[in-house]
């Protein structure tokens, strides 16, 4: 997919005008939609966003806004931004990034106000919405970090789904048998590595197409865990499938901060590990010798090889490491979210993590925020279906996926994958 961007430096002038009209058009269409629905179609009542509960240590006042006012202000501001984008494009200049960012935030505010305002109870707990989003995003973040580790070293990892699922399965079984959730956490990491091992052996040693191995591995894990679930786990679920949950560790005082307290300082160990993993992968990837080598191997393996880096060894190690990360992410399903394994319980989260990875442009921080966006969209659809909105339930459930399509196709533009991602390296 990077071919188109690199192929036409010669006729860049004509190309630039052709290509960059995409964003102004998208912005205009979305702005018009906002005007029609959020402004003209705004409900006439006030909307309440709660920031804390009454019995919290620190009580913040709720934010009460008028739906039509917010709708009109946001829609007009969006139209202004779209007009700005059109003007910039006409004069042949780039659209600044802040325009897109502000536009997205405005859209989000207007949408939230509109959708909550039209619900039966126009009152929503904003802090709960955010905290729930982070919780839902935890496995996605682990999954996309696993993808970052693999793809940055030049191995496409479609098997994230399989790693998550096998991690979840192993965590449930090991924690049930040992009675300790931490043993389960360890087993999840081992299970992720096992899936990674197959991926690495087949795609690096036997140079099988990496996407094929990934897809097949997902099927294999789904079948294997499903079979063992019905043959072993459900026969004696007391023994095999009743893992203890990981305890929520509350950091005193800090956890009492309104809104961000529960998000940052009231998590299980998996949640804290998630923040640590994002930071560690980011720093290691861009500020360490290992990271430089990883990126070199992923961008230009020949050059790396010439300089004495063992390309396939580097890739093998990275794929295994990715298994550890994704496996721990998988333990979230059985040790944090619910207590016990269920058939195909990851339900395509691995694929969403893959989307987050691409949306986040193969960058750990970017992937983190992209995964948060998906978590938010999923949580929003859950919360809204409880509130009783006029939007059909099915469309709310589509939300995360539609957001992904818009993100991947529209706003993110032509993201560039690591140069050698998906291409096996054969020395010589």
């Amino acid at each position: 997919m990077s071919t188109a961007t690199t192929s036409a430096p010669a006729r860049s002038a004509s190309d630039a005008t052709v290509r960059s009209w995409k964003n102004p058009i998208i912005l205009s269409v979305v702005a018009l939609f906002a005007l029609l629905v959020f402004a003209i179609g705004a409900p006439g009542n006030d909307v309440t966003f709660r920031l804390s509960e009454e019995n919290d240590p620190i009580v913040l006042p709720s934010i009460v806004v008028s739906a039509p006012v917010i709708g009109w202000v946001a829609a007009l501001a969006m139209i202004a931004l779209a007009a700005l984008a059109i003007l910039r494009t006409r004069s042949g200049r780039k659209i600044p990034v802040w325009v897109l960012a502000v536009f997205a935030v405005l859209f989000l505010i207007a949408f939230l106000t509109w959708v909550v305002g039209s619900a039966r109870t126009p009152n929503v707990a904003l802090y709960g919405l955010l905290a729930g989003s982070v919780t839902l995003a935890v496995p996605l973040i682990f999954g996309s970090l696993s993808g970052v580790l693999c793809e940055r070293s030049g191995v496409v990892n479609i098997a994230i789904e399989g790693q998550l699922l096998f991690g979840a399965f192993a965590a449930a079984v090991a924690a049930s048998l040992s009675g300790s959730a931490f043993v389960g956490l360890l087993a999840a990491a081992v299970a992720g590595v096992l899936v990674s091992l197959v991926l690495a052996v087949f795609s690096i040693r036997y140079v099988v197409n990496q996407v094929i191995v990934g897809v097949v591995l997902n099927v294999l894990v789904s079948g294997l865990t499903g079979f063992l679930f019905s043959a072993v786990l459900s026969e004696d679920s007391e023994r095999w499938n009743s893992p203890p949950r990981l305890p929520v560790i509350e950091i005193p005082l800090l956890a009492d901060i309104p809104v961000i307290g529960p998000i940052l300082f009231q998590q299980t160990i998996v949640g804290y590990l998630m923040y640590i993993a994002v930071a560690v992968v980011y720093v290691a990837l861009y500020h360490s010798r290992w990271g430089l080598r990883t990126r070199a191997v992923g961008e230009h393996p020949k050059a790396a090889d010439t300089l004495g880096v063992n390309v396939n060894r580097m890739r093998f190690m990275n794929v295994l490491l990715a298994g550890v990360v994704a496996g721990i992410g998988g333990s979230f399903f059985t040790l944090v979210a619910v207590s016990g394994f269920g058939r195909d319980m990851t339900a395509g989260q691995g694929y969403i993590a893959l989307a987050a990875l691409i949306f986040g442009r193969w960058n750990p921080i970017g992937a983190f925020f992209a995964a948060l966006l998906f978590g938010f969209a999923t949580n929003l659809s859950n919360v809204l279906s409880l509130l009783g909105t006029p939007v059909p339930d099915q469309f709310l459930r589509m939300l995360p996926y539609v957001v992904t399509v818009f993100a991947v196709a529209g706003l993110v533009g032509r993201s560039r994958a690591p140069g050698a991602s998906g291409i096996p390296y054969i020395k010589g």
Partner: protein
Amino acid sequence: MNPQDDRPVTPATGGGAHPTRREAKDAARQDEIRLETAAETAGGEVPPPAVPATTAGLGVGPGAEAPLMQRIMTGNALVAFLSVVLSLILGGLLIAVTDQEVASASSYFFSRPQDTIAAAWTAASSAYIALFQGSVFNFEGDTFTRMIYPLTQTLTVATPLICAGLGVALAFRAGLFNIGAQGQILIGATFAGWVGFTLHLPVGIHLLLVILAGMVGGALWGGLVGLLKARTGAHEVILTIMFNYIATNLVLYFLSTPAFQRPGSTNPISPQLDATAVYPPLLGASFRLHWGFVVAVLATVFVWWLLNRSTVGFELRAVGANPSAARTAGVNVSKGYILAMAIAGALAGLAGVAQVSGTEKVLTSGVAASFGFDAITVALLGRSSPWGTFAAGLLFGAFRAGGVAMQASTGTSIDIVLVVQSLIVLFIAAPPLVRALFRLPAPGATRAGKGGSSTSTTPTPASTGAAA
């Protein structure tokens, strides 16, 4: 590289100043050979899996002549066969290990090991016998109809697998990894179903319109992905996955509207399709096999023709082998992406038609089962060649039909079928591994050590791409 790469690839325009029509045609063929070779070796982003030697050699005249025995020992067919055997053995082990009888017998393994082995054998073999009885031939049936009933069930299940598998395979050949067959089947089935139970038309025209609607629905859903990929450069893997979820929810939404529900009911199930809108039974009313299977055969012929004999197919394969080279050669790559995805979607739509107007005869949200995802493994196993996909569809149809019977009679979970299927695809994709396990000679005659020969024989994106 494959042995047939030794063929001369220089155009045979024998030095004449005025190439005749025939020579031009020959040159075109040589181009095609090179394209096939490129398709196997170019390091495109998602290169299509190598086509088997038989299809690669189609219309090229005699392939590389080698002693018969050597060809059998090194051929793809043997690897494929051994892969299936190996996968079945591993699946059998899994069945045996998790079996209750085996577990109780293994508690006294060291005093009477034969008990454990016998129990393991019984567990695995009875499951596989049930699988065979449920998919090919029921030798316990009292009438001939009952005996061959399983085989027709296999063909019935294989029909949507073949259609959707062809769609995935076609997209592969154009260099696109189409994971969206599931969504395309669903949308195709929705279109077809709606025409089937809403319009009331005469016999013949109605069914034709149903088929057409299903293909249009799938083609729209697939073509949209192609359009987005061509226009915005978005990755088709992500797009197709997201479109699957969107399609599932869209169908659920449709089924919650009165236009798709039975009168006086709010259940998410559509009315029965009109009798004029369903595929007639192929072998009489006592079998579920319907004319959709014939349509699947025709679709296979069509895809074979399209890929190997038509200009469009040539361009699609060129795009798949190397988009940059294809663009330089004057092929419209964007058009290729859109067209490939639209045709792939139309084929998946045919699978939807097979389900909604052949097997199920009503539209529900589960009408596509998991055929769309199985289609990916079918296409991979068939190595993206039309007839390979057809054969793989039959095999997986047998697994699925037999798996249901197996689960009913021996209680072995049908999930074992998924395990065996994915193992087969994994092993077939890595011939060196299978050859090493069975100590077969590697193709290329000379036994050049350990690592070197095995990597060079693998028909996957090879050094050219990595070195570029």
